[in-house]
């Protein structure tokens, strides 16, 4: 079985499991948390392509998440356009901005790239707060319309569950397609060595920019989904701490693995709610768990599993060769 077929099969199984959850559990609270997980999966999957495959770190995707949310929400509120259409427009505009930002930014490396992307997110955040005539400022935007199909609206947590998980799994599906293709190999080549990659005929700046745009588009889509699901947005949701949190999900999940996107989001998103029990010790314990995972599971949650699988496969192949 080819790696792509294997991943698709696993994704199908996962999808079946995810979509059967509401058959047994329909409490809006838990569904709400799961919906946030799904939105994060979408952002984290895009970031995994960028960070894990192309080796370019970004601590600024909260900015793209914000653009998806605000552009779509503003158009839907003020012009009364259909949220599906405004979501598309938001993605298109975010993609363009990602292109403009990406070209100069992706020339940077390491700490400099980290700072530039952080700076971008900080600028977006401050503008969201200061341009309050347009954005509603810190008190946010209320009364954002829901998605609808005909007269049927995605108004409840359950209905949105189908919606957001559909897009999260679709995002993963597309991402798997990408990594098991010419582009995916090109990205990995760039991660290992940009010079070596370019000598294989890979236009490195172009590939980097393209995958940057793809990840920005996924963040933008997630942002729009957030806005029309929550019906309220405010700048706090889109600050640099969000950007740091999603990159943390990439790493905790396993940097080089798209499955890590799923596991990382599913682990870190509900963690603060679970730790609520510890009250004043919450941050202390959260920090400790976070460090612990990074220290002792260097490949992340998914990486650990994949490594185990790879090792078994390698061993069996070694045996075959020895025979």
């Amino acid at each position, binding site marked *: 079985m080819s790696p792509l077929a294997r991943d698709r099969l696993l994704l199908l199984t996962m999808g079946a499991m995810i979509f059967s959850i509401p058959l047994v559990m329909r409490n809006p609270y838990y569904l709400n948390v799961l919906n946030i997980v799904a939105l994060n999966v979408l952002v984290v999957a895009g970031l995994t392509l960028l960070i894990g495959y192309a080796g370019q770190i970004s601590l600024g995707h909260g900015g793209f998440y914000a653009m998806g949310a605000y552009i779509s929400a503003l158009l839907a509120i003020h012009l009364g356009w259909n949220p599906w259409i405004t979501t598309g427009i938001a993605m298109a505009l975010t993609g363009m901005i990602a292109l403009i930002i990406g070209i100069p930014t992706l020339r940077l490396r390491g700490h400099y790239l980290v700072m530039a992307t952080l700076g971008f997110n900080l600028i977006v955040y401050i503008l969201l707060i200061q341009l309050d005539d347009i954005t509603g400022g810190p008190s946010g935007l209320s009364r954002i319309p829901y998605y609808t199909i005909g007269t049927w609206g995605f108004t409840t947590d359950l209905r949105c569950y189908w919606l957001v998980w559909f897009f999260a799994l679709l995002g993963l599906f597309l991402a798997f397609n990408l990594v098991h293709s010419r582009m995916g*190999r090109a990205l990995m080549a760039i991660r290992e060595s940009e010079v070596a990659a370019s000598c294989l005929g890979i236009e490195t700046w172009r590939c980097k920019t393209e995958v940057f745009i793809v990840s920005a588009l996924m963040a933008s889509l997630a942002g729009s989904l957030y806005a029309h699901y929550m019906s309220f947005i405010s700048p706090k949701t889109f600050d640099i701490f969000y950007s740091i949190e999603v990159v943390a999900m990439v790493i905790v999940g396993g940097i080089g693995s798209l499955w890590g996107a799923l596991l990382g989001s599913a682990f870190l998103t509900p963690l603060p709610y679970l730790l609520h029990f510890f009250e004043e010790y919450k941050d202390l314990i959260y920090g400790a768990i976070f460090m612990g995972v990074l220290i002792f599971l260097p490949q992340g949650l998914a990486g650990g599993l994949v490594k185990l699988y790879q090792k078994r496969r390698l061993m069996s192949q070694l045996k075959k060769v020895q025979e």
Partner: protein
Amino acid sequence: MELLAVKEIVKHFNGVKALKGISFSLKEGEILGIIGPNGAGKTTLINIISGIYKPTSGEVFYRGERVTGYPPHAMAKMGIARTFQHIQIFPEITVLENVMAGYHTRSSSGIVSCLLHLPSVMKEERAAAAKAVDLLDLMGLKAKANWPAFALPYGEQKKVVIARALAGDPKVLMLDEPAGGLNEAETEEMGDLLERLRGLGITLILIEHDISLVMDVCHRILVLHHGYKIALGTPQQVQQDPQVIDAYLGGA
């Protein structure tokens, strides 16, 4: 016909002169060796040909066209491939996928078709895999196609990166110390492989310290010393050149 020619290449790094006016040309099917002491400018020269560095002055011609300062990916697309001294294998993915990565120039699917995995992508994937398997067969590594690359011994990794460079069907292949770090027996295998490549009619530029390998395989040899060209000729001519003996080979 001249396939590749460099004319009067000069390269300075922050005032340090690495190359001081190097010229040579290469015929189709020819194997050119480049030797010289460390720091003579051998790698700098092929870095300029492959477009990683821009020369301070001088020109590079490929099939009669001036290609000076073209970016590396453009050179690769035109058919100039290379390997690296530090092999730059992609350790985490399989041997097969490593070689398939070299197929990049021969495929064209954009990011959108890759995301959607359109039929055209599937077709290209199959073609790339077939090509990669053929090349691994040539290298005698077909059995290890699905190994992660890091699990291969160094000598075999060196072959994988040569296969990767060949996957794009290059006209010119530049090898930077293919036998570096190999022991004598492995070096011999590498020599056999180079002979096989010669048999396929691929034009080669070979940087190597292993003199016997260079002498065996190459049609002509270029000798660099402190950025100067001190000799260019057949292996016999070069071997007997007093300047070369003095600067590089050492008294016998």
